[in-house]
């Protein structure tokens, strides 16, 4: 979407996206209401069923449907959660945080410097270099895995975490530069000019003026990148070879090896979803913005 919008319309977009329309609405026919209700129910039931099941004892889950709790078959406990935490989900949860937080924070600053230069500095090759970033937005990450594995070996990087931080920093960079440049480029020219008149150099302008003004875009990108790295499976599968695991990998392994142990799978899946869901509910506004701005990510 952002491909056609610069930041201010995008901001409008995001503000309106999850908000109700300005005109009071309520012109829906009963057919429309019914259809919408049906779609909402179909979309919600899978998650709801998982959540309810995660509190039911092992025998109950596989002997009766989760919907029987509504007819009195209630026998809830937290046992599944304790069991799956012992199966490695607890460690994996900590590992996911240790991967996702640095992988989110590190690329932002470098991207912001580049975005400022692309937006407000004149230099030869500016458009050509930026087009490289635009083109790389859709490059399949698969291009990088084999070469990077060799590179990490050649340089002697041992830490799985370091590999993942570096890989996610590299993979997230085109989007970061793209989003931030669109936003920074839309700041009013007078603000930048007035800083110059006051004698501030580029570094000072960037640090004291651009960064504080760009907080909304920085936050939007940060949330998007955090969810991306937290939910990533493929990159972790390839670069975490030293025995540590993140939640997605642990969950996928549980599915593979304990596919019939639904008490573990339901609780495990829900643990893996907690952080994204909290982020979703708390920061919906920013999340939507990251999404609208990031819709060309490859």
């Amino acid at each position, binding site marked *: *979407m952002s*491909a056609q919008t610069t930041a201010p319309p995008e901001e409008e977009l*995001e503000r309106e*996206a*999850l*908000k*109700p329309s300005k005109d*009071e609405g*309520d012109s*829906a026919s009963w057919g*429309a*209401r019914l259809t919408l209700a049906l779609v909402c129910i179909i*979309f*919600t039931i*899978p998650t709801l069923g*998982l959540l309810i099941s995660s509190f039911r004892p092992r025998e109950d889950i596989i002997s009766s*449907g*989760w*919907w029987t709790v509504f007819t009195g078959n209630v026998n809830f406990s937290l046992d599944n959660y304790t069991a799956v935490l012992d199966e490695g989900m607890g460690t994996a949860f900590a590992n996911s*945080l*240790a991967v996702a*937080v640095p992988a989110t*924070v590190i690329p932002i*600053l470098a991207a912001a*410097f*580049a975005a400022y*230069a692309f937006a407000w500095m*004149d230099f030869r090759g500016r458009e050509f*270099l930026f*087009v*490289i970033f*635009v*083109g790389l937005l*859709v*490059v*399949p990450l*698969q*291009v990088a895995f*084999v*070469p990077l594995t060799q590179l990490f070996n050649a340089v002697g990087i041992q830490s799985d*975490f370091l590999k993942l931080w570096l*890989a996610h920093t590299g*993979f997230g*960079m085109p989007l970061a530069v793209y989003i931030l440049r669109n936003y920074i480029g839309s700041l009013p020219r007078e603000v930048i000019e007035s800083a110059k008149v006051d004698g501030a150099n580029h570094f000072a302008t*960037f640090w004291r003026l651009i960064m504080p003004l760009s907080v909304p875009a920085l936050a939007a990108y940060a949330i998007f990148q955090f969810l991306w790295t937290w*939910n990533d*499976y493929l990159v972790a599968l390839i670069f975490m070879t030293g025995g540590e695991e993140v939640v*997605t990998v642990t*969950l*996928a392994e549980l*599915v*593979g090896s304990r596919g019939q142990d*639904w008490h573990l*799978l*339901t609780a495990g899946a829900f643990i893996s*979803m907690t952080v994204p*869901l909290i982020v*979703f509910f708390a920061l919906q506004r920013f999340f939507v913005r990251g999404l609208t701005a990031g*819709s*060309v990510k490859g």
Partner: protein
Amino acid sequence: MGNAVSAAIAIVLGVGGVLVLFWGLNAAVERLPKQQEEMLKPYVFVGPSLAIVGLFLLYPSILTVWFSFQTNVGTPAQEFTLDNYVYLFTDGALHSALINNLLWIIVVPAGAVAIGLLVAVLADRLKPTAEKISKALIFLPMAISFVGASTIWLFIYAWRPPGVEQFGLLMAIAELFGRVPAEPILQMTQFRLNNFALMAVMIWLQAGFAMVLLSAAIKNVPEDTIEAARIDGASEIQIFWRVTVPQIKSTIVVVGTTILILVLKIFDVPRVMTSGDFDTNVIANIYYDQAFTFGNRGRASVVVVALIFMTLPFMYLNIKRFREQEANR
């Protein structure tokens, strides 16, 4: 605990390192004569990001193309070959996966856009609170990982032999009608039915994304164009197809292609739900197996080259759109 400490150190070193790097480079160019300073400074600001994408994306892309012409990649016996391309054009399993990918890139973007559009249009007519809640419910799956979503839907598709009480929702519904199939849905290879069961997961995940963007576009459609059609006696459905849809066409295209690019590389869902068995394999999974299970990096690279070729049109479109947008600035 150790992880938390090392993560904290990484953040401090990463952010601090980047700051020191920029500050140092900046200080260095400021010592130069004014003219050279002005000339070099942009490259100081752009340099680190460019170096990162160069090292992590550009250089690997070139290497991948090179590897696709090599055998025994990474060993002393590495040499030129066209065998990988013979594999690409003749391997039956790979072609079966390509057919699946083709189905994926048609069905998922279409399904997600259709549902997203339906919800966007209908919710627009509700009271504000009802609109907000219904949109949030459709949007919520967006936050869930592909692996988590796969687990959720495995539970929906869970199957037990006919006669035993079903605990998977879909089979329980089938049981109501007395039609529990003799095999699980994910093993139904006829008409590649099981593939559609996997695609449903992805539609469920992406419909919210489509809805958010389409809803914003619909709200930007000028009210007077709709009023005019209404005065002319057009029905609501006619208004939708003849007035609204033409005005949001570009958003539909952007949303559709964005989902298409995502789906082209679909990996997690088939990997977790079926391991690519029962004719559900996809090219990203073949890539993974060639590269990291069988260690055949030449073949893995040729699969990626095919993927790159498929994304080239979209790369071109993105760049073209960017140029147009720059021209209008």
